[in-house]
């Protein structure tokens, strides 16, 4: 197979060598439980404290507002459940969007079963939530609003700061609203300053920015109503029980610091390749459509539908040619339903099945883009030739 070109950074990223290096001492040497008093444990405690400081700096918040979790999914579960449960006396209505990650959507559905009400806001054809529509959905019972910062499938960036303004205006009228944003896809691409965005809670996942899998962050603004999701020991100031995953927490903070430091240059790099790739596909292949917002999108996201073909069959051919990409969300590939994001954007199901996402990373090069552009038209042509829907005898 020779060279492997990885273009699925939205699904996961390799751990950066410097990140792994920072993690290594905590497996076999400084392996203590940070809750213990003796030296080997205090080394672990210190590492976690420093990681918290670093993470707080990246988010422009206080270290005490950082909760380390087991990943983006836990952060989303903890945020939505934690705030909804804490506010249940005064409100039982959640507002979210129909293009959220399943970590938010399925959590909302499970809260519906527990008697809460959820509004799933529609999006426009680019996948964007309307701020007016969101404001119109707020009722006397609304307690939690959860809108992602950037979409994992199509890369569309949501108007988070504007929504925060709306939330703020309701809060000034005395309403107890909590605003959560899933920023799992935003790290490394967007500024993460929680005060600029105006969010009360924010989710991150390390493996999306060259950190380890299985570790995330929940930012929790001081004073935000929150019922702990995972209960047990008094770790994370009683807000997230469980022995701290010390190596991974160190890895997350190291990766986040790297991501923030190189954000501008990495984004520029991705954006250039992204635009070349989009241009190249549009000019080389017919009956394709770029999904997501044309400009207000993540710098590394390319998402197309190729009519008359199915996404997975493209992926398998790409893989055979040494290119790793994704069809819809990797997290839902165990399901065969077409992407809920594309459906929410108004694509017909039969078209949505033909979607492919390329998400670029620091290691991708112009040569990678050239190579992809050299083989993709042939793959699509071959599959279309096999498709019963492209047989247009005369017309």
């Amino acid at each position: 197979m020779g060279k492997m070109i990885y273009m699925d950074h939205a699904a996961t990223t390799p751990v950066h060598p410097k990140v792994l290096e920072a993690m290594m001492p905590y497996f076999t040497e400084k392996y203590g439980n940070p809750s213990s008093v003796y030296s080997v444990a205090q080394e672990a405690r210190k590492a976690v404290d420093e990681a918290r400081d670093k993470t707080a700096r990246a988010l422009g918040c206080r270290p005490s507002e950082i909760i380390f979790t087991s990943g983006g999914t836990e952060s989303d579960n903890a945020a939505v459940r934690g705030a909804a449960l804490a506010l249940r006396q005064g409100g039982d209505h959640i507002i979210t969007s129909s293009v959220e990650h399943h970590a938010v959507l399925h959590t909302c559905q499970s809260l519906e079963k527990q008697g809460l009400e959820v509004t799933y806001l529609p999006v426009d054809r680019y996948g964007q939530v309307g701020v007016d529509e969101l404001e119109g959905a707020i009722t006397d019972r609304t307690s939690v609003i959860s809108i992602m910062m950037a979409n994992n499938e199509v890369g569309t960036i949501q108007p988070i700061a504007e929504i925060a303004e709306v939330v703020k205006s309701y809060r000034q009228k005395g309403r107890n609203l909590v605003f959560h944003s899933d920023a799992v896809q935003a790290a490394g691409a967007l500024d993460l300053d929680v005060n600029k965005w105006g969010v009360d809670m924010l989710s991150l996942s390390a493996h999306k920015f060259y950190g380890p899998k299985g570790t995330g962050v929940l930012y929790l603004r001081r004073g935000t109503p929150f019922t702990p999701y995972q209960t047990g020991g008094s770790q994370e100031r009683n807000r997230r029980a469980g022995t701290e995953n010390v190596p991974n927490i160190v890895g997350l903070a190291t990766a986040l610091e790297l991501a923030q430091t190189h954000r501008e240059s990495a984004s520029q790099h991705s954006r250039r390749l992204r635009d070349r790739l989009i241009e190249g596909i549009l000019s080389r292949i017919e009956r394709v459509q770029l999904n997501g917002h044309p400009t207000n999108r993540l710098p590394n996201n390319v998402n197309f539908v190729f009519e008359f073909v199915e996404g997975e069959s493209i992926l398998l051919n790409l893989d055979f040619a040494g290119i790793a990409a994704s069809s819809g969300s990797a997290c839902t590939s165990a399901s065969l339903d077409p992407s809920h994001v594309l459906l929410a954007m108004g694509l017909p199901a039969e078209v949505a099945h033909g979607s492919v996402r390329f998400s670029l990373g620091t290691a991708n090069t112009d040569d990678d883009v050239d190579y992809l552009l050299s083989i993709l038209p042939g793959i699509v042509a071959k599959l279309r030739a096999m498709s019963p829907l492209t047989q247009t005898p005369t017309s």
Partner: protein
Amino acid sequence: MYSDKVMDHFFNPRNVGMIQEADGVGIAGNPVCGDLLKLFIKVKDDVIEDIKFQTLGCGAAIATSSMVTEMVKGKTLEEAKTVTNAAVAQALGGLPPVKMHCSNLAADAVHKAIEDYEGKRPGKKSRESLFKGEAAEAGVRGGREAPAYDEHLHHEIPEEED
């Protein structure tokens, strides 16, 4: 995820294409579900002399289409009628559980093609020409009877056998 045999049939599909003067045409699947299979058969003396397929779909859909053409080519209609989706999956060395229900419809298409052939013998015409261009909705409704998609619309992940 897929067995080597599936990958072989996916990358080197046997009997791709259409038969212009087909004796029978069978359709299975639904593009709304991401899979649409169309099978063409030529029959002589109750034997499937030639068979071709066109498939829009995932790896499993294309591989099962290819596999089933190999399995029934040269077989009598009676033999071909006994082919099942499960047998196709088995012949491919198994399919991932999530693919068992939705993308494993090739045997259904064979049965439909035979039905079409047998229904036509009194003098009916092939409906093949109904499938034109990208008109998906028209396409899938074009068979003699509406294909049984609906049971495939809502997928559940089956209990896997270990």
